[in-house]
């Protein structure tokens, strides 16, 4: 069974209509962000992962990630992934889900005995422009809570490589809007895992766009009396780019299936989510470099739309755990199973596997 494309197609259409990269690259202000966000909200997309009974769409992770892939293919510059993940967490914790732009509370915070929030959170994508922040925070006893807070008026604001906003919030005894103790159904790292998978999907979409743009450009650009697409060196660059994009897409899709199959905490999907974030992050680096090479100097200008994708790829691969971070997780996860559990971890079937053993001399 292949997942339903309807939601992804809707997402693609909204971005094409209101946030087409070529158009917004020439825009003088960010008014388009308001419009595209409104359209996304009207279509219910930020609440894709919220069950219907809680006012959402109740889409599967696979469908939601396919929507994010479509958004990534338009160099998504709004907190769609963050809001989807945050809203999922709130609903999962049994809390009301506000229809607000959400960003995440990254590590650095504690809840005190009175249930107040203290500390400085690490800089989070879109935190400086979100309306509310969502996260999983521990109290002094190590008990984890799901909390939703208003965005503080004072933030340390910064930008990622693409110029998208991020911010680090400081709390001195702020009372969350709502909170709930983490239930057994939710894992401490669920938000991180889901956000990593979401970034993988966005990157996979951006890589798809790079293939399309680069192939298109190679078929137009003339050099030495023919289009550069006729040079084998260029063809091979593009073939490699397409391969990286294909790997990224499959890895992101597989992460979605693993998340959908995880009953209870999403940590059951750790293997495929970590693998996706690593592999897609690698593809982002390779793919962005190839796309720039094929575009020549024109791609190295503010006017050209290419940087909307490549700069985001370079940022997204760092968000919610870089390749290095997730590779270490994955490496430890596999090593911990020992040599006899290795194949079981890869295949998801823990039964012991025989191997032709002995010294092959």
């Amino acid at each position: 069974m292949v997942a339903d494309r309807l939601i992804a197609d809707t997402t693609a259409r909204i971005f094409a209509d209101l946030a087409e990269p070529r158009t917004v690259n020439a825009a003088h202000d960010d008014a388009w962000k308001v419009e595209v966000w409104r359209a996304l909200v009207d279509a219910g997309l930020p609440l894709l992962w919220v069950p219907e009974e809680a006012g959402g769409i109740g889409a599967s992770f696979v469908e939601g990630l396919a929507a994010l892939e479509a958004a990534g293919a338009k160099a998504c510059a709004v907190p769609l992934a963050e809001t989807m993940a945050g809203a999922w967490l709130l609903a999962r914790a049994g809390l009301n889900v506000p229809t607000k732009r959400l960003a995440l509370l990254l590590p650095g915070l504690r809840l005190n005995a009175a249930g107040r929030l203290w500390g400085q959170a690490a800089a989070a994508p879109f935190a400086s422009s979100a309306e509310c922040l969502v996260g999983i925070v521990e109290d002094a006893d190590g008990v984890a809570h799901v909390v939703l807070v208003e965005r503080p008026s004072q933030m340390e604001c910064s930008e990622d490589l693409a110029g998208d906003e991020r911010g680090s919030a400081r709390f001195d005894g702020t009372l969350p809007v709502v909170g709930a103790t983490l239930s057994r159904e939710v894992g401490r790292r669920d938000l991180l895992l889901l956000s990593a998978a979401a970034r993988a999907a966005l990157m996979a979409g951006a890589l798809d766009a790079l293939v399309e743009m680069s192939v298109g450009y190679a078929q137009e650009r003339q050099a030495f009396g023919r289009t550069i697409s006729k040079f084998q060196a260029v063809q091979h660059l593009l073939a490699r780019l397409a391969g990286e994009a294909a790997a990224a897409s499959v890895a992101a899709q597989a992460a979605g299936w693993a998340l959908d199959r995880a009953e209870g905490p999403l940590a059951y999907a750790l293997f495929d989510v970590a693998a996706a974030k690593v592999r897609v992050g690698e593809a982002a680096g390779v793919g962005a470099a190839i796309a720039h090479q094929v575009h020549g100097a024109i791609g190295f200008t503010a006017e050209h739309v290419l940087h909307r994708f490549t700069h985001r790829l370079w940022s997204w691969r760092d968000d919610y755990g870089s390749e290095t971070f997730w590779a270490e997780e994955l490496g430890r996860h596999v090593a911990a199973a020992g040599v006899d559990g290795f194949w079981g971890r890869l295949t998801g079937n823990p039964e012991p596997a025989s191997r032709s053993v002995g010294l092959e001399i």
Partner: protein
Amino acid sequence: MVQGISFAYAPLPPEVESLRSDVRRFLHEASKDGLLAPSAEGGAVRFNRDFSRRLAAKGWIGMTWPRIYGGHERSHLERFIVNEELLFAGAPLTAHFTADRQSGPMLLKYASEDIKRDILPRICAGECTFSIGMSEPGSGSDLFAASSKAVPDGNGWRLSGRKVWTSTAHLADYMIGIFRTAPATRENRRHGLSQFLVDLSAEGISVNPIRYPSGDHHFNEVVLDDAFVPGDHLLGERDMAWRQATSELAYERSGPERFLETIAVLVELVRILGETPDRYAAIGLGRLIAGLQTLRHMSVAVAGMLARGLEPATEASVVKDLGTAWEQALPAIARDLAEGVGEPEARLRFEHALARAILIAPKLTIQGGTTEILRGIIARGLGLR
């Protein structure tokens, strides 16, 4: 998804996955009976007729073929699981692998009813070994430069010429090869080649070993000197072999054998790194695993397309390009991560696996279509050629 290349992934369904446990139990038994013992000559390319017969008795050769020809009408996804488990185990598959993967499907599509009824059940019984006779001294990547000839003779053909790099021909019953039946035309240089089924025991055929640099004997020179084949051994359309090649490629290039041939290195690496590797090794291992897991998923995606009756030739080329590149890089990475780690016995095992992987790594990106040729095919899929 990009034009021309589409990888819709869905995981193997639980009812298919359950086959994995059966295969592992089968391998456990085979192992107890000594069938997984490493061969004297070493390597995953191993020929063991008994093992193939046993596999056949389980219904795991010709899995997707029609029952009337001895097949089992199971899905490509089930075939994927069986193969993946066998490959991981380092099982001896050479006696049936080529026939199961590509020669059988080729015969199903293009051979006469008599031939199908004669040969396919023997393949399914694990009794029949195939080899592929495409390459010649003057024709490798450029398949259509083949000059070995087929000349009509009575109710059949006479074949002459030299095939090279013919894997397993010294142990095979048949070869499916391409032979020139007409000159190329000015409009189409691919024209004029036909595909023939060749009984290697026929008079006029000699098979001579060509050795790997390591000294191992896996491939051969096959010399044909006016060897007779009956008329119905011409497969498909005369002079049109070029059209028949593409579907074969989708089968040949996308399977897990494209990245599991030297998996022993990774297994032995995991062994010597132990359950709590240092940070450097954990990161390196994690990156290797992320690559491998993604390749597995891509290979499943292609199996899914085959199961839906598609011919994903471009996607198969992507899997082979990425898979062989990953596997070719594996020994250097493993060697780096393993530096200075491990108990002596585990190290010895690792180093043997590593040595073998280093020595065969160069061939991975040559056999079955070179990296450069694959990238040309992918470029065509992208509409660039």
